Structures are given as C-alpha cells and as structure tokens.
C-alpha cells in the first residue's frame, strides 16, 4: 500500500528523469566530434554546478550572518548590565568587521582608493587575518596548501558562530513588532543596494573624471570638478556619440517614448476591452495575442530586422505588390478622369521604401517593431484591471442613462487608474531606456539618426570608450526620468493606493 503510493507519486518524476537522461545519451551519440567548436560535456556541467553552488553557499552564508546579527538586535535583550556591555561590544566588533569588509569591497572595486597606507592596512585587516591564518595553518602543517584557505574560512566562521552563541546565552527574548519586517526585506535590500546604489555612486564618481580608453578606464583617470564640468559641457555642446548632438537625440527619445507608450496604451486598451467579455475562443485569442511578448526579444528583433530588408523583407514585398496593383488599376481606369490619375499618383507615392538608408523610415521601422513588441504587456495589465471592475457599476450607469463613452470616461478610466498609473510610469521609463531593439535592428543608423539617448550612451561607452563622459550622460538621463516621474505623480495623484 505504502509502496505503491510512493511509486504512484513519484512516477512522473522518475519518467521525466529517465527521458532526460536518455535524451542526453541520444544527443551525445549523435553529435559527431568535429575539429572546431566545443561540445557540452559532463565536465563543463559539473564545473558550472560547482561554481554556482559555491557562489550560492557564500551568498546565503553571508546573508545568514547578517540576518542573525539583526535578529539578535531586534529580538534579544541583555539580562543585566554586564551582559549588556558584553553584547554591545560583540555587536560593535562585528559591525566594525562588516564595515571594514564593505570598505574593502569598495576599495577593491575602485569606488575609492585607500591605498596601502595605515588606513589601507586597517581596511584589509579582516582579509589579512584570513591570509595570516592560512599561512599559519600551512606552516604548522595543520592543513595542506589546497585546503588551508577553506580551513581558515571555516575557523573564522566558527569565531562568528561562537560570538553569536555568547550573545544568545547571555540575553533573553524580547518582542518586536517590526523587527521581523526588517529581517524579511533585508536580503533583497542588501542586494539592491549593493548592485544598484554602488554602481550609482560609482557613476557619480566617474562623471567627474576623464576616464577613457586613453586613461585605461579608471586606472590612470584623473578626478575633479573640472572634468565633470567638461563632461557636462561636452554633453550639451559637443557630440554625444560620433556626430549626433544631445538636443536632437533627446527630441528623438521623447518622440520615441511618446509614440511607443501612446500606441502601447491605446492598443492594449483596445485589445483588453475587446477581450473583457464573454466571447468564443477568448483563450485562443489571448494566447495568440501575447506571442510578441513571449518571443525572446533578441529573436523578435532579428526577425523584424529581416522583414525590413529592402528586397526580401515582408514590408517591401507587400508595398511592392500594392504598388504594382495600383499601377495596374491606374492602367485600367485611365479613361476615367480623376480616378485614373489618382491611382497613378498613389502608385508613385506608395511603394517600397528604403528602411535602412532613409533616416525617417529607419526610425519608423524601429517604432513599428517596438510597438508590436509592447502592446501585449499593456493589454494584459489593463485586462487585469478591467476584470477587477464590478459589472454592477456599468449596470448602475446604464440605468442612469450613461452612454458607452460616458461609462468609459466616468467608470472605466477612474477605476483603472490604480493599475494604469504605475503601468504608464513604468512604460515610459522602460521605453525611454529601451534600446536593445534599436541596437539590434538599426544599430542607431543611418548616421546615428535612429539613436536615442541610451543607445548613444551605450555607444559612447563601449564603442568610443568615453567612460567619464558616459557617466555624466547617464546621470542626466536619470535626472530627466526622475523629474518626469515626480511631475507625473503630482499630476495623477500619486501612488498612494499602491504604497499604502
């Protein structure tokens, strides 16, 4: 009974496992050993698993140390004066070690340079200690060269463990209403702070430097207010990438953002309204309509890029056919005054365009692509919002004699605003910063005429290696978005409902 239950429960898992393993063997026997290229083999897999496993262990270990530290601060209290002194000094000691480690990290990653002087020695102390311990272990033949590092780390962790245990045993529990909340948000915030705030400060620092290829990035870079000023001046007077000027690119970015978000919201709203009713095949429509969102962006971008090919792309083939059809029509209607000429005129206007060479059409091509990609997301967000609006409001409005438009204006839009406000803000911010489509489809060409701010910035950094300038550029972009959001929140009444 128990046994059959076990088999029944785990049979799918076992079958999946077996299928995957046999698939692996089938493929590895099929893949012929040619001279160039690399085959995925078990060694690669194991190495990666080791690498990631060690990394995760390190991250979660470090998080655990931090969490226990704060747990003890929030949820334990000293029993008497002596224990208070001991606990506080242990906590202060750990805090100092943590601060030193953070400083070390900043030092090692160039946010600032402490050098090897007195301060440097202090900052490096925790790691030097590990190094010293390691050497001592090797000397005393306590551990081999390979395992000494690990052993030293384990020993040091043990010290932390003991310190925590001491605190635990000379303290008593205490209630905290909000302590748990802080413990819960801590891991995410440590991550976000380190990897968003750190680069942010780094960016500010870089903005006031002349870092470039010539200075070997930050190695020989000079820092000072004057460099910042120069970068700032260059941004508004000089060229942002190769030839483009800031004003023109900013204007194009605004166009890019406004056109995209407008179409996303309108298109999304239209689709959502059509789908928000009882309808045959609703599930099928919904599934098909989210396909542009489901396709990996890189693939979608490359597929669309091909469709904008001047000879073999879908758009020009269709436009060519349309042109031929119009010409044909004008031939047949030649006799009819007006109409014949009209068709002839249309045929001269409508026809294949050069998506790659003409800046206007190139910009249109990236717009079409990004609009196509972005509508499904808005449609789904708005559909979710629409579905949460009770049908009763509409029935009440209908009884009051409201027209469809009035219902939309007075019920749908206001009730949708808690969903629409963040969606539009995020839409604008993302579109403003979204340049993978541009980068993949036109590379900003021709002559940087389809670049937006962020793609120019990417070029400035990774094609022209103007690091200091790029940093200033990035700060200005951030400031623009920040001001936009503040203004939008002021106008739209804010995110109260969402952050409450």
């Amino acid at each position, binding site marked *: 009974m128990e046994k059959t239950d076990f088999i029944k429960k785990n049979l799918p898992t076992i079958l999946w496992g077996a299928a995957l393993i046999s698939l692996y063997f089938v493929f590895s026997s099929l*893949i*012929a050993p*040619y001279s160039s*290229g*690399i*085959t*995925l083999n078990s060694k*690669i897999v194991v190495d*990666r698993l080791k690498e990631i496993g060690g990394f*995760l262990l390190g991250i979660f270990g470090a998080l655990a140390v931090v969490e226990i530290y704060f747990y003890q601060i929030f949820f334990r209290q000293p029993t008497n004066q002596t224990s208070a002194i001991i606990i506080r000094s242990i906590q202060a000691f750990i805090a100092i070690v943590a601060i030193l480690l953070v400083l070390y990290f900043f030092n*090692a990653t*160039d946010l600032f340079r402490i050098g090897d002087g007195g301060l440097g020695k202090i900052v490096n102390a925790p790691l030097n200690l590990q190094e010293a311990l390691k050497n001592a272990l090797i000397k005393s033949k306590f551990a081999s060269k390979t395992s000494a590092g690990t052993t030293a780390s384990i020993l040091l962790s043990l010290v932390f463990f003991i310190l925590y245990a001491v605190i635990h045993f000379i303290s008593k529990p205490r209630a905290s209403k*909000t302590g*748990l909340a802080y413990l*819960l948000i801590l*891991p*995410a915030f440590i*991550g*976000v702070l380190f*990897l*968003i705030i750190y680069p*942010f400060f*780094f*960016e500010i620092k870089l903005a006031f430097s002349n870092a470039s290829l010539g200075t070997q990035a930050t190695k020989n870079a000079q820092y000072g207010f004057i460099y910042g000023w120069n970068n700032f001046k260059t941004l508004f007077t000089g060229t942002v990438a190769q030839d483009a000027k800031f004003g023109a690119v900013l204007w194009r970015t605004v166009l890019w953002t406004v056109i995209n978000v407008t179409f996303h919201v309108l298109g999304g709203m239209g*689709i959502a309204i059509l789908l928000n009713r009882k*309808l*045959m095949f609703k599930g099928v*429509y919904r*599934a098909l*309509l*989210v*396909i*542009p969102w*489901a*396709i*990996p962006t*890189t*693939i979608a971008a*490359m597929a669309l890029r091909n469709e904008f090919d001047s000879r*073999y792309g*879908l758009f020009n*083939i269709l436009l060519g056919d349309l042109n031929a059809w119009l010409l044909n029509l004008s031939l047949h209607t030649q006799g009819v005054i007006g109409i014949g000429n009209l068709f002839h005129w249309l045929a001269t206007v409508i026809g294949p365009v050069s998506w790659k060479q003409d800046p206007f059409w190139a910009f249109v091509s990236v717009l079409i692509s990004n609009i*196509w990609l972005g509508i499904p997301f808005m449609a789904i967000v708005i559909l*979710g919002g629409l*579905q*949460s609006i009770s049908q009763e409001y509409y029935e009440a409005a209908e009884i009051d004699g409201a027209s469809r438009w009035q219902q939309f204006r007075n019920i749908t839009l206001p009730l949708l605003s*808690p969903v629409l*406000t*963040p969606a539009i803000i995020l839409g604008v911010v993302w579109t403003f910063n979204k340049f993978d489509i541009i980068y993949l489809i036109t590379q900003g060409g021709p002559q940087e005429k389809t670049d937006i*701010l*962020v793609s120019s*910035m990417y070029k400035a*950094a*990774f094609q022209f290696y103007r690091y200091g300038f790029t940093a200033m550029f*990035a*700060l200005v972009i951030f400031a623009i*978005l*920040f001001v936009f*959001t503040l203004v939008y929140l002021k106008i739209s009444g804010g995110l109260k409902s969402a*952050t409450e």
Partner: protein
Amino acid sequence: MKPNLISRSLRWFFYRSHGDSPFKTLLIHLTLIVACAIAVYPALRVITISLRPNDTLLTTDLRIIPQNATLDNYKEVLFGSPEKNRQSDFFLWIWNSLSIVLVTSIISVILAAVSAYAFSRFKFRGRSAGLVFLLTTQMIPAGMLLLPLYIMIAKLKMINTSLGLIIAYAVTSVPLTIWMLKGYYDTIPIDLEEAAYIDGASRFTVFTNIILPLSTPALAIAFIFSFMGGWSEYLVARVILQKNAIFTWPLGIFTYAQQFTVSWGQFSAASVLIAIPVMALFLYTSKWLVSGLTLGSVKG
C-alpha cells in the same frame, strides 16, 4: 428544423454577452483575428526561413511553408556540420543560459516573495519610502549600471564567469518583482492568516501554507518575468562574456549572423528551437497572467 439549427449554431458562434448584437460580435471577432494575424505572422516567418533550403534563402516568396522545405538547418544547428568540420555549440549555449537564468530567477523570486510579504503585511517605518525607492531603481538606465558593473565585475575577476551575470540579472529583476508580489499579497484577506494563527500556525507556517499556495499565479508570473528577462538578454551578456565557451544563446546565435556568410537559415532554426519551449512555458502560464500581474492594483 433547419433554420433553428442554423440560428442555434450562429448563436453558439456569436456567444452573446450582455447587450452585444451579433453584428458587433462579428466585428469583434474580425478585429481580434486581424490582431492575432499581426501578432503571429512575424513569428511564423522565422519558421519559414528556418525551413528554406540554403540556396533559396533570399526570396520574395511569402508562403509559410516554403518550396522544398527541409530540416537541414535544424540538423546543422543541433549536430554540427561535417562540411565545415564544425561541432554544434547549441547545447553549450543553452546550458550556459539555462544555468545562469534558472539560478537568477530562483534567487530573485525567493528574495522578492519574502520582502514583498513584509511590505504587504507589516507597518514599519520606511515602508513607503522603500517602495518608492524600488520604483526609482527602475529609472536607472540599464546602460548606466553597465559600465560600473563591468568595472566591478572585472575587478572581482568575474568577467567570463556566469556569476557576474547572475548578480546583474537577479538584482535588476528584484525591485519590480517585489512590487508585483506585494500587489498580489494585498488582495489576500488578512482573515485567512488570522484563522491560521488561531488554528495553531506560526508566522512561517502561515507564509508557506497559506500565502505561498494562494499566490501561485503571481509567483509563477514573477518567475516567468525574471526568466524571460535574463533568458533573452543580450547587451549585458555581451559586455561581461567574451569567450565562446561561456556564451549564452543570444550571444551564440549571433555567431551565425557574424560569420563571413550570414547563415540566416541556421540563425532562424536556432531561434525556433530556443523560442518554442519558452513560448510554450509562457503560453501555459498565460492563464495566470491576467490575475497574477498586479502592478500595485488594489482589490476592487
């Protein structure tokens, strides 16, 4: 008998919702069908190109199944090519991408699920500020983080390792995921948790036995978002990964486009092979999309 049947089946087709006339319903169906065609066609074209034989790649033919359709491109992508004496890197790229993106998504969903719970259920000092801060991080252009991140990862000697990318991806997806999950948790009545406390549950049990199962849609969507974000990411990967052996697939398939002769056939075949499982996953979860994607929406 017959008219009745026809009208019945017509009514069946134009399932009439409140107040929609059959004509309007027909129009709605037509609009949706056109919209679906626009949404699907470019994707179908990728499949078309992947099926073309190498000598007719460039054609103005608009048929979905091309003439002389062949699976040669797929074969070369999967198993390498004897003529070029070249092995297939396809599985290597997939493995690289998968190992990075799966770990990323798992980390970011765990971190976000836990902190979103705190944001949804606790009143603590700095709560609103924290939420606004998370939203602000979305305004930092990815390109802006890229340069310092690159320098940092270089200094930490993590260029050409998967770890650099894992860090970069996880952190960029966490803020938005927190927002989404917080919005979803807010719609779960607090009564349920209190009932569980009285039933004998601890906070942890409540989280794992009540909150998590009830937010499956949102968790699934959060996972899919992180996954999709990292899965097709190109620009950050291009900066951090420079060796063939560590390439993720977006970098990998561009090697088809950058060889002396651009092999669109293989590029498309690889794209199809990569896109189809992801799209299947996405479509499978699309039933949750509508309910799970709560961007700070409040319970109506």
